[in-house]
């Protein structure tokens, strides 16, 4: 059993604490994706698992072994870097076999393993080339191949696709998904691409400022976020947020929306402020003059209407047709209250 | 043992890698600096016993005309050597074009830097030589009387500096050429749209970008100026009557030449030179420190 378990893991750089006691379990064979805003500690956490950064507190276990202070080499992990980190002076085959060679494996064994990895990744034609002579996608494949060859228990990826252009990114994404299905190892993957996270993950870990905000399957996070941060972070375009006041049992007034609205979740005390969240595709245009059209973005298949409420709050509406509206027109909005989410104004926790 | 090595490999490795280089450098550079300071408080002819005389050497320096001549010449060197910076920049700008054979031209322009200062000194001695030297004749043709530059206390230092400038300009030129290579084309274009041309383009847009090159050019020029020994030694031996001495040469003369062998006094001169240089070294280190720590 080769899951990865972090317990109250802490990282400090001098006085600055960047990871604040993270608890996390990644199951055996699971594909786990770390997402979060830039600087939230995704890479740091991953590198701590790899052993490239010391752990300042807490413990890290891989399988049954406590590896908190183990050398990277002894953890049984392989890492794929954003920059690929291929050795430029070695051929593809040498790159892939280097780790084994250095740890004293016999040549025939190395050759066999390299051949196998190259078959999986369709690199057979490039084995004797130097990395310089490869395209970005091929390089990324070699980097993955280098990881595979060593047969690690855990794969770590740090934004492996962010240096590729959009088209290749899609292609390699499919490739990685296939790889995971094929070799079934535990994988931890850092990205800040929504689509990668949503499509690859078994489990997404949303991080903010060195803390875990929520852990769960992609659509669970989308449909059922625990707090405003996760709700706003997952999904594109982002969820609309408006302030509302509790004005009765099961009702709120949201001046930025349609005013008085019944809601189904448990609300705080009368007069308290809550934040309502509504995804752009759940908002519709309606009769009225409560909102002003600020911008219209027609992308062909879908259009976005940017509105501003009289409160100054901004809303985005997604629609399938191109609305026949001018900038500055006044419109109303409508929605199905079932789609509403509510968050506590202070703690930003979801009210259910 | 191997367990210890395994766990502490990363902590020990840097020191093992550093050991040989650090040892050599300590032995031959760092420790001698302190030894020199120590020797400067002694009276020692290099043969017999050294005698501790405190600051006497420095007191004597205070009242030594030759020392002031050398110091004055060093200041002149420093000031005039700085001309290498603008001159190198001008040549670099002049050559920063792409025409056929430009690479070759650039390398030929760079030639003087590769040549030993001894050879440069001999070349310029020939250039200045009275009666048949190229420069002497040129001067004679222009003004009617030739001047033996290296025998005239008014001109000798300048004559040597010109010889020194020749390779130094070449050096600065190459620094600027590579600096110009790295000038951000988009800023130049932006400035072009902004209507900057010629000198104003150079002053407002190019020079600020060349700051790293300028910095290093100034540093190597300062060091070159203060270290100047070869040319003085080859071209004039400090003469005529000591008027072209610089500190580094005077130090050598006092410590190791035929009529010298005053090790302590020489060391004292070296310490003064070191103190002057330390101003610049500190500046350099300070800038590096800033660059390193802000990353």
């Amino acid at each position, binding site marked *: 059993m080769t899951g990865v378990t972090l317990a109250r893991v802490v990282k400090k750089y001098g006085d600055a604490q960047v990871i604040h006691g993270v608890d996390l379990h990644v199951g055996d064979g699971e594909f786990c994706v770390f997402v979060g805003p830039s600087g939230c500690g995704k890479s740091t956490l991953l590198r701590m698992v790899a*052993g490239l950064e010391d752990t300042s507190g807490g413990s890290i276990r891989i399988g049954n072994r406590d590896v908190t202070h183990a050398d990277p080499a002894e953890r049984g992990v392989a890492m794929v870097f954003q920059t690929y980190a291929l050795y430029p002076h070695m051929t593809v085959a040498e790159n892939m076999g*280097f780790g084994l060679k250095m740890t004293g494996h016999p040549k025939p064994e190395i050759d066999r393993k390299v051949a196998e990895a190259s078959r999986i990744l369709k690199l057979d034609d490039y084995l004797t080339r130097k990395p310089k002579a490869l395209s970005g996608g091929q390089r990324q494949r070699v980097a993955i191949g280098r990881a595979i060859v060593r047969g690690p228990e855990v794969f770590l990826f740090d934004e492996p696709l962010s240096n590729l252009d959009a088209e290749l990114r899609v292609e390699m994404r499919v490739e990685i998904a296939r790889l995971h299905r094929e070799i079934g190892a535990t994988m931890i993957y850092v990205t800040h691409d929504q689509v990668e996270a949503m499509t690859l993950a078994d489990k997404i870990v949303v991080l903010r400022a060195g803390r875990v905000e929520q852990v769960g399957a992609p659509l669970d996070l989308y449909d059922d976020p625990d707090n405003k941060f996760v709700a706003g972070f997952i999904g594109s375009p982002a969820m609309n947020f408006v302030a509302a006041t509790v004005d009765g049992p099961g009702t709120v007034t949201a001046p930025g929306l349609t005013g008085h609205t019944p809601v189904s979740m448990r609300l705080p005390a009368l007069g308290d402020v809550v934040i309502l969240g509504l995804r752009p595709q759940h908002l519709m245009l309606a009769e009225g003059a409560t909102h002003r059209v600020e911008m219209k973005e027609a992308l062909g298949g879908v259009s976005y209407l940017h509105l501003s409420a009289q409160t100054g709050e901004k809303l985005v509406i997604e629609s399938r047709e191109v609305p026949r509206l001018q900038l500055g027109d006044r419109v109303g909005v409508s929605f199905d209250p079932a789609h509403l989410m509510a968050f506590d104004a202070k703690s930003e926790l979801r009210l259910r | 043992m191997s367990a210890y090595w395994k766990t502490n490999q990363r902590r020990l490795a840097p020191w093992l890698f550093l050991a040989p280089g650090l040892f050599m450098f300590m032995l031959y550079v760092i420790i001698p600096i302190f030894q020199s300071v120590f020797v400067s408080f002694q009276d020692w002819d290099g043969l017999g016993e050294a005698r501790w005389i405190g600051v006497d050497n420095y007191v004597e320096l205070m009242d030594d005309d030759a020392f002031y001549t050398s110091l004055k010449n060093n200041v002149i060197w420093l000031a005039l050597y700085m001309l290498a910076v603008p001159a190198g920049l001008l040549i670099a700008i002049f050559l920063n074009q792409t025409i056929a054979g430009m690479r070759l031209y650039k390398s030929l322009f760079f030639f003087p830097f*590769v040549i030993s200062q001894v*050879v440069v000194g001999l070349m310029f001695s020939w250039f200045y030589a009275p009666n048949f030297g190229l420069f002497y004749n040129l001067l004679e043709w222009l003004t009617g009387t030739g001047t033996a530059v290296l025998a005239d206390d008014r001109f000798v230092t300048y004559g040597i500096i010109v010889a020194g400038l020749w390779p130094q300009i070449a050096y600065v030129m190459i620094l600027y050429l590579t600096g110009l290579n790295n000038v951000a084309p988009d800023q130049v274009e932006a400035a072009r749209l902004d209507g900057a041309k010629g000198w104003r383009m150079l002053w407002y847009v190019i020079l600020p970008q060349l700051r790293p090159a300028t910095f290093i050019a100034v540093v190597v020029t300062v060091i070159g100026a203060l270290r100047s020994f070869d040319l003085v030694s080859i071209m004039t031996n400090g003469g005529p009557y000591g008027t072209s001495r610089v500190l580094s040469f005077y130090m050598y003369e006092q410590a190791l030449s035929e009529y010298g062998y005053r090790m302590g006094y020489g060391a004292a001169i070296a310490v003064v030179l070191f103190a002057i240089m330390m101003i610049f070294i500190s500046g350099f280190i300070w800038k590096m420190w800033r660059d390193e720590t802000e990353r």
Partner: protein
Amino acid sequence: MFPRPITQLSAPSQTLYKIAVPVALFLWLLPLLGVALTSVRPASDLAQGNYFGLPSALAFENYATVFRNTPMLQYMLNSFWVTIPTVIGAITLSCMTGFALAIYRFPSNLIVFFMFVAGNFVPFQILMVPVRDLTLSLGMYNTWYGLALFHIAFQTGFCTLFMRNFIKALPFELIEAARVEGVAEWRIFWFIVIPLMRPAIAALSVLVFTFIWNDFFWATVLTNSAATQPVTAGLSSLNGQWIAQWHLVSAGSILAALPPVVMFFMMQKHFIAGLTLGAVK
């Protein structure tokens, strides 16, 4: 990008420029050309005052004379004896120090680094008296290895600055990737860093070669006989003998300048890369 590409100017100014460059070059190299010309001038020309005109004959025998009548060959060999071990030694040491300073984070890292840098810029006159004593007491005075050892130590300062910055500029992920793969530190040095440093090593070798070949000061301080003196010091003492024999002085000068110049031309790319890498960084 700056100045305006000449190709964008009018045809006459382009032509003007194409003429101006070689003319400037000619003026720039005038002392060198003069000496080169003098080195093949027969002694009789000098005696007759033909200092500037074309030589009446190409007297390559001046060079033969230099080799025959003076220890020039010995001097040049000595120079190689000093220069080559220095290049090898300084590069080897500085690869190691540069690696240690660039890759590892340890408390005194920057201090050690700055010590190398500062030592490198010290006026070397301050080292003269102690280094001479040290060399004397080691029994290495007036030997090529005494001179080479000092050069190795001193150049290590400069080379460390250079190497450290170069390695620092390598992607650190390469080291990390190797560490994750379980490669020992010295193997990382040997199998990953050294191969990647090849351009730096080449550049630095050329640079150190010219520095050492052209050194005069230490040659004067640490050697004194024709059997050990490098060519710079040798040339200086020959200059004392060749009074008024400018054709020989010139030939000797050209000979002494030749190896670094040849080196420069062969390794031009590395050389310039070296200067800028080492300096502008």
